[in-house]
């Protein structure tokens, strides 16, 4: 993953979840991050849309299995 994208995603997660200890990996899922519930999931999506100026649709979001896939989706949208 592009280091800058990785840093930006980490910042989004830390800001949204109000937890500076969050460290993401490609395989991170909601189960690995305390507080990442369904509401927070939507807030993360909205924050990603704002930060990267992209639009994510429901079917794309539902297919995501981990943070690595989210990063790949962001890259594809920005390409």
């Amino acid at each position, binding site marked *: 993953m592009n280091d800058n994208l990785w840093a930006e995603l980490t910042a989004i997660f830390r800001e949204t*979840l*109000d937890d500076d200890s969050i460290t993401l990996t490609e395989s991170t899922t909601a189960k690995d991050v305390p*507080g990442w*519930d*369904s*509401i*927070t999931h*939507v*807030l993360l*999506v*909205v*924050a990603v*849309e*704002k930060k990267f100026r992209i*639009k994510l649709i*429901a079917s794309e979001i539902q297919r995501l299995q981990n943070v690595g896939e989210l990063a790949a989706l962001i890259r594809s949208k920005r390409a």
Partner: protein
Amino acid sequence: MPMTFHHVGCLVNDIPAALKLYQHTGLAAGASVPMRVPGQKVQVCFLPAGNDAFIEFVQPDPDNAFLQRMLRKGISYYHVAYLCSDVETCAGDFVRSGAHELNRFHSEAFGGRLCVFLTTPEQLIELIQAA
């Protein structure tokens, strides 16, 4: 899409303390009795603001992580709410315009009617099924 403005939601740490600000205005006398909404982990109180509109004071429960985070960040007024003749149609219209559905629930504050929260990067909107 018939919809009318109903209230603006205001996060507070303590509803009685929030109402004190209005105690000399006459508005506080018309405030609703604070009501628990267990499904949303909040207490709410509606203060009439004229023209059939309200301020909704929202006091989150200690374990309401989402709203407690907003409070810690200093956010007070955080959502606007509309009464809709058909909440499903209204919600669909907002989604088509780019909003994401945050959650839906039947609210004790509105007689068990369906409510839907939608969000964009900058706005949080609540839709309430009209009676």
